[in-house]
């Protein structure tokens, strides 16, 4: 009886982790190619503010974080190109959003205990409805990326090449922003607001040394993301460590191994 329950929540956790890993990997490849890591951070940190708002207005966490992540993207677009360097602007926004989020959460009754869960994830508490949201979000992100793939790649290479081919680079940027907001909203439960960017960037970076085309890199990143989730969960269970950070540690191990292998001289 106990074992069945145990199996169940671990299975749910594994499914949640794999779902996030599969979606975050390919999207993370774009984040890496377009140097959007800081942008990812800003969006993810803003999610804490989204959590506070969701709780204050009794919205679902998914709705609140999604709305705030999108608002953050909008603010970034509004303020960019107005004198501040992009990394400064994003640094200001990311950390302000996090600080305001933490302060806002303290106003909401009964959440203080759960704060750690939103910062570092609470994958073992994933319920059936969470699973539906996570897999729905992941499917939406992967569908968006597959649908716009060539247009996204072209506008990643250059806005001019995209324009000359009749692609509006602003629309493609919007697609990525939307996908990023969805990933943040579904990943907050799994790895937490502070480590979402890690799930985007580390699997993509780990797959770079052995990829020869963008497609292979995206597929490899998805695989590494999913494997990190499974391996991290297993390790967390065995060593009784926090699950979210352990997943990221496993991804970092993948990165280390692949980077070292990539530095070795190629044969043939």
């Amino acid at each position, binding site marked *: 009886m106990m074992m069945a329950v145990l199996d169940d929540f671990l299975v749910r956790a594994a499914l949640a982790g794999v779902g996030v890993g599969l979606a975050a990997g390919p999207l993370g490849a774009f984040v890496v190619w377009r140097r959007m890591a800081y942008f990812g951070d800003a969006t993810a940190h803003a999610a804490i503010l989204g959590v506070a708002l969701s709780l204050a207005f009794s919205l679902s966490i998914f709705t609140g974080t999604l709305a705030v992540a999108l608002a953050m993207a909008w603010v970034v677009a509004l303020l960019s190109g107005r004198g501040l360097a992009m990394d400064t602007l994003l640094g200001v926004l990311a950390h302000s959003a996090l600080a305001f989020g933490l302060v806002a959460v303290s106003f909401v009754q009964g959440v203080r205990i759960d704060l750690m869960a939103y910062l570092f994830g609470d994958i073992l508490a994933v319920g059936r409805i969470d699973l539906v949201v996570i897999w729905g979000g992941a499917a939406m992100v992967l569908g968006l990326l597959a649908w716009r793939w060539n247009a996204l790649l072209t506008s990643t*290479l250059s806005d001019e090449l995209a324009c000359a081919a009749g692609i509006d680079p602003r629309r493609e940027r919007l697609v990525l922003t939307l996908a990023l907001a969805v990933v943040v909203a579904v990943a907050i439960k799994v790895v937490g607001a502070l480590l979402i960017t890690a799930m985007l960037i580390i699997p993509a970076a780990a797959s770079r040394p052995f990829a*020869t*085309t963008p497609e292979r890199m995206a597929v490899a990143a998805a695989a590494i993301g999913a494997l990190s989730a499974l391996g991290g969960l297993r390790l967390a269970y065995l060593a009784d460590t926090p699950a979210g950070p352990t997943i990221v540690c496993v991804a970092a191990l993948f990165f280390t191994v692949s980077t070292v292998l990539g530095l070795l001289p190629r044969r043939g």
Partner: protein
Amino acid sequence: MNAPATPLVTLSGLDVTLGRQRVLRGVDFAISPGEIVTIVGPNGSGKSTLLRAIIGAIRPSAGSVRHKPGLRLGYAPQRLHIDPTLPLTVRRFLGLPKRVTDAAAREALDEAGAGDLRTRQMSDLSGGQFQRVLLARALLGKPDLLLLDEPTQGLDQPGSAAFYRLIADVRRRYGCAVLMVSHELHVVMAASDRVICLNGHVCCEGAPEHVASAPEYRALFGTGTGGALALYRHEHDHAHDHSPKEHTHDDGCA
């Protein structure tokens, strides 16, 4: 020039403002099918901006850019920075954004003299190879108009002469018009049907010989005594300015 055929692209009264700077003002001209037109002008004269306005990457603040209905554009940008984190073979690059068959990719690469580069990574190409691959990609859509922004940038003089011969050759076979930006005046003069001298506005335009002797052109490019010789000397005078680094500041585009 005076061909009755519908122009491929017509610019009328084109104004472009970037930031607070009015980069182009009152630019009028049209490109007819099959002609090779070269835009020359000093750094910051709006050459690249003009091409970007033609492809629709920049919205004019006044005036208009009209494309002939159904116009197929082939565009090769001045620079293309490919992030080192993006793995991209030449073959895959050719298939962006529209997938192409292996046969079509091979043919375009052969046309551009880059037949052996198919499986190479874009980031490993030399300057000349990169330009040829950009040309191959621009040719893939069977364009009516090729837009080439400083296509010989980073090539030595024999290399760029060969590249211009290639472009003339391509025009002959594809029957496409070519609009290119260049700073290599004397080579350009030999390879173009028409030259447009740009400095925020069209200073002068016409057949190469005509432009070379126009006072506006002399005022911009030097005071040499006679036609071709002056151009050669100009090229020599400025040889040191032509490192690729200098040109990254070209036109102050955003």
